[in-house]
């Protein structure tokens, strides 16, 4: 790894309450168990493709806990990419729905079996459809933020993406449109930097010392944090969000994270041993601080694993969409997004 990517110093001691830490841990375990189940499904042939966010839980879970979820410009708009399962769960998503999308059942609430796993979408929560093309969400984000700026209130637009994806012009579009002096926009731009784009290493492709520095020329507040530490993540995300909510200005947050199972099932979806596991680190801390014992944590993990196994069984029996339905829902006849 190039010196560009020296480890990010962690933030000072936490002020986060023990309850919150435990809740965060629970969600991280749940998210990991979900991803492991999904990988298992893939390997069993219960789904054609897996992609997700194992290794990013320490960042994605706090993010989801801090999203102001709801419908319309008073709430946060979420333009996620395909590694946000932890965020989704922390927002209150039901893991079985991810299994449904994995198995492309008609019951998949995000796309009815049309889209890949991890491609969330829910109008009730302002989660716009995740799409596979890298970085396009960054060109759309200013649009929802514009509506929020005009509406007043504290709703913000959150857009996430990976490190390699910042090479697309859309990343630059988001920087430019969010920082226009004529209309600064409440956009929280998040880069989860796992130092890889599929098989392509970060260091050969990025002349930037840190991706977050790309905000500086535009006067955008920017920061790079250790996304492997959930306490740091929680605090930093909360701080960045507060800035965006109250100042109505953009913020660029880069989080250094791990990629624990490689890129996707296309690269085998096997456990990497050379990447730090945020869950291991966090659990050690919780144990040291006497907040949760190893046994409690193992039980928790076992409980989620069992629940997901049940869910898997259930989903296996759910129906596949009918071929004739491909023509359904091409055009809407009502303006659903404007109805209350």
């Amino acid at each position, binding site marked *: 790894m190039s010196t560009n990517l020296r480890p990010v110093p962690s933030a000072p001691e936490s002020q986060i309450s023990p309850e919150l830490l435990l809740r965060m841990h629970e969600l991280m375990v749940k998210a990991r168990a979900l991803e492991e189940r999904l990988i298992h499904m893939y390997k069993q042939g219960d789904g054609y493709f897996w992609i997700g966010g194992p290794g990013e839980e320490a960042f994605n879970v706090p993010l989801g806990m801090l999203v102001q979820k709801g419908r319309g410009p008073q709430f946060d708009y979420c333009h996620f990419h395909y590694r946000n399962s932890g965020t989704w769960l922390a927002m209150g998503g039901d893991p079985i729905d991810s299994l449904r999308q994995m198995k492309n059942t008609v019951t998949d609430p995000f796309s009815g079996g049309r889209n890949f796993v991890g491609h969330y979408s829910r109008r009730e929560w302002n989660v716009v459809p995740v799409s596979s093309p890298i970085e396009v969400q960054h*060109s759309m984000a200013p*649009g929802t933020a*514009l509506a929020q700026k005009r509406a007043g209130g504290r709703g913000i637009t959150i857009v996430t993406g990976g490190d390699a994806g910042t090479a697309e012009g859309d990343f630059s579009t988001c920087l430019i*449109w969010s920082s226009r002096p004529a209309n600064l926009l409440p956009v929280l731009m998040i880069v989860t930097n796992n130092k890889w784009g599929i098989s392509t290493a970060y260091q050969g492709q990025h002349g930037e010392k840190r991706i977050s520095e790309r905000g500086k020329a535009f006067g955008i507040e920017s920061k790079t944090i250790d996304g492997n530490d959930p306490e740091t993540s929680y605090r930093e995300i909360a701080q960045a969000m507060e800035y965006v909510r109250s100042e109505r200005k953009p913020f660029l947050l880069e989080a250094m994270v791990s990629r624990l199972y490689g890129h996707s099932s296309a690269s085998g979806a096997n456990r990497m041993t050379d990447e730090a596991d945020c869950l291991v680190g966090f659990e050690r801390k919780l144990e040291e601080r006497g907040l949760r014992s190893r046994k409690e944590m193992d039980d928790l993990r076992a409980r989620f694993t069992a629940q997901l196994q049940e869910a898997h069984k259930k989903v296996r029996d759910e129906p596949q969409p009918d071929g004739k339905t491909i023509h359904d829902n091409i055009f809407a006849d009502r*303006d659903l*997004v404007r109805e209350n």
Partner: protein
Amino acid sequence: MSNMVQAIRMALHVAEERHDLTDVFGEDVGPPLGGAFTATQGIKCAWNTPLDERGIVGASIGLGLAGCRNVGEIQFCDYAYNTIDLLKLAGMMYWVSNGDWNLPMTIMTPVGSGIRGSIYHSHSFDATATHIPGFKIAMPSTPRDAYGLLLSCIVDPNPCFFLVPKALMRVRNAPGEEIPGEPGDDRALSKLIDAPLGDRSKWQPQWPETPDLFVPFGEGRTVRKGRDVTVVSYGRTLPLCAKAAEELSQENLDVEVIDLRSLWPYDWERVKESVSRTGRVLFVNEDTEVTNFGEHLVRRTTDELFYHLAAPPKLLAGAFVPGIGLADNLEMASVPQLPSIRAAIAELAVMEA
């Protein structure tokens, strides 16, 4: 009586006053210019964007997702070709979310030849647009249709393309086809709604009272009835087809001319009824002729009307060349003109069955 840019302006005004249009935006769309063709002068919600078409289409999608009816302009359709992925995403938003997220948005853009715009200001967009599922596509050939179609685009809960034929920007309605409420006198209307030259900072438009008048999607217009040949067109070439038909009527040829007006959905019933009667059909547009929307119409014709045809269905379209050259001769040779249209109709009329 309004020309097409003025009609567009009036529609935008009506939409921002009565139909919750929140944003009209694009390069040079806001004050002081009000659009490269002046189509957005005096619109209160019009604003200037950075020079970034991906940002424009992206913002249009984002605004639509947030429930804001909006019109994003691409200054010339020639500059939309780096955004096809985003347009495709827009077209699939409702479908991919299986009916959860619809997407109200309109992309307005000037298309086609006719102003000696050379290679990068003369492109057509109908072939590209009709190959993107999930969009409704309007393309007027008269100011009144521009007014009615643009209003339909804006209130539609789906992504729409509003394609404006550059060559017809200054064309006026035929008598009797005014937009109700507009002053009959061109000068009077201009005084009311055209921004003055020079300092415009204090200028306020005086809008005539014009009604909601929606030209629905999928409803073509039979511009001229006829028995011998059916000609189907839209945009710049439509008035040329009408003119050719008129000229040919003096040679005892009775040509029916249909203005498609909306390319998706399109008025197949009208085309079908006509071709079933005449047995001969010529489709005319100016996009390049390989993988052209007119070829779709030819295909549908052979699919459904083969046994009604007295002659092969024909397409007259733009030459398959990389661009429209600047010199007059080059432009004229690249896209259908009155003589070539007239000749194509005349030839088709006498083809053996």
